[in-house]
């Protein structure tokens, strides 16, 4: 069942178009930086962007930071929102369930396929970022050392390790959105509705983060710790927000999936 869902996801043109589009903005940014040589001031603009002019090896992280606030969640919400609702509106859901595929198994397979999509998207963005960064942007220090966020020096091994950790962290950060969209996907036959519902949730979260009056809520908002992967490049690594981010996403995922499961396994399939 999981294999079938993966095949379906990977053979779908939409999957690859989405990933292609995700890479368009970071690549455009890299081209603009390379042509104009005008980077943002340190501390301004997307994370790492001020540093990439001197060292293209940091561009994978800059690329992730560029797509993380909006592009990536949109892509994830679209794919996860379509997971069950798309099958329902296409009519294939009733045939899957009478094949029979157990409803819990179907939900798990959909979840795995969404997670694989998120991981694939994040890895491709990082990989394309690396290639683009090396080709277009600064070659860095002759010693091979990279300057981290606190002005510290990172060896190549450290950079690779921490980039991989960032990839995992960004993937985890997207799982909350994925679970939300998947839950809505079991409640409606409209894939678009499910995706937009999940995005509305994120927009609300982002808005509340800018509001001082919402300070009490802020530690619990899903987008609060999204960009904390930057802390992996401090010396020493600042784990506090990263730990909280992982925990918070875990709680969101559990709650949303629990509701999705309870709803999907007891509902009448009338589509």
């Amino acid at each position, binding site marked *: 069942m999981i294999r079938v869902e993966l095949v379906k996801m990977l053979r779908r043109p939409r999957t690859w178009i989405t990933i292609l589009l995700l890479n368009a903005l970071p690549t455009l940014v890299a081209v603009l930086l390379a042509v104009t040589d005008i980077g943002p001031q340190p501390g301004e603009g997307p994370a790492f962007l001020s540093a990439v002019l001197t060292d293209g090896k940091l561009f994978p992280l800059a690329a992730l930071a560029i797509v993380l606030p909006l592009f990536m969640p949109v892509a994830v919400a679209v794919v996860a929102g379509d997971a069950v609702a798309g099958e329902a509106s296409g009519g294939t859901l009733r*045939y899957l369930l009478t094949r029979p595929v157990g409803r819990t198994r179907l939900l798990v397979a959909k979840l795995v396929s969404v997670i694989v999509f998120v991981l694939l998207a994040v890895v491709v963005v990082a990989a394309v970022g690396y290639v683009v960064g090396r080709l277009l942007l600064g070659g860095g220090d002759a010693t091979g050392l990279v300057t981290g966020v606190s002005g510290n020096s990172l060896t190549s091994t450290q950079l690779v390790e921490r980039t991989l950790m960032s990839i995992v962290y960004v993937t985890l950060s997207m799982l909350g959105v994925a679970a939300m969209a998947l839950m809505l996907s079991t409640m409606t036959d409209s894939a678009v509705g499910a995706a937009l519902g999940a995005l509305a949730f994120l927009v609300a979260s982002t808005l509340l983060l800018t509001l001082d009056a919402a300070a009490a809520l802020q530690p619990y908002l899903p987008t609060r710790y999204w960009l904390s992967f930057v802390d992996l490049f401090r010396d020493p690594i600042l784990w506090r927000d990263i730990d909280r981010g992982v925990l918070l996403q875990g709680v969101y995922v559990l709650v949303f999936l629990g509701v999705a499961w309870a709803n999907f396994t007891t509902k009448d399939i009338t589509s």
Partner: protein
Amino acid sequence: MSDAVIATRGLTKRYGPVLAVDGIDLVVRSGDVYGFLGANGSGKTTTVRMLLGLVLATSGEAEVLGARMPRSAKRVLPQVGTLVEGPAAYPHLSGRANLELFDALGSARRGRRARVDDVLERVGLGVAGDRRVRGYSLGMRQRLGLAAALLRAPRLLVLDEPTNGLDPQGIREMRDLLLGLNHEGTTIFLSSHLLAEVEQMCTRVGVLDRGRLVVQEQLASLRAPTGRTVVVTPDGDRASGLLDGRVEVREGERLVVRGGDPAELNRLLVDGGVRVRELASERRGLEQVVLEATTDPHHVGASR
């Protein structure tokens, strides 16, 4: 009920204040071609969905192939082929790729190619199998849906409006295919609102009217002779006089006469000098049976 392939007891589905299916007791026996008739909105599809475990019954029980549904879905459904409310497939994949994906859900990889080729051939999609479903006509999609239902050589086929979208040639092919399968032992449960289709194929008929099962009978007994004989003759007046009050209806050359023995009637008429063009025992058509059993068609659908 040991040989019942489908048996329900008081099966009921309530959507809020509306009773979509109202305590029906279906019995479909092994080897039947069961025609499940009813107007749009009479509860046919809801019943089919309950049998397959898609919709959960409000009360009552359903047994399919001897096991309770939806509890035993895992054991029952692999032996059931379904076509519910129109076919569905992934449009960006070919018909063959769709069937292969579907087959991968629960069947071993071994023999997949042969199985898929076989069902494509059976439904007449052999050539079109490699084209994307996006470009299929409604009739081709219907054939693909049936192909998917046949993949596991099911003991029971549950088909909802299987000839929808097919041209007359396609309908005929579909009918021959289904009757062939039935001949090999597959029980067929076919829901339809097309009386002619059911009349031509089915051995047993159930009629649903606003959620209630109002008729469930062998088609042959529903269509048993009425005890009257239809005579067509140009000598209507003469025949009426001769038959002396036995004529119940007279419409032009067509007379409906009390008495179920055409041979005896024929001798009487011919001896009396009446020319007989046609002579046959009267049988009720399925349409008549259904219309008598169901309520005013203007109210149909109001119960949904």
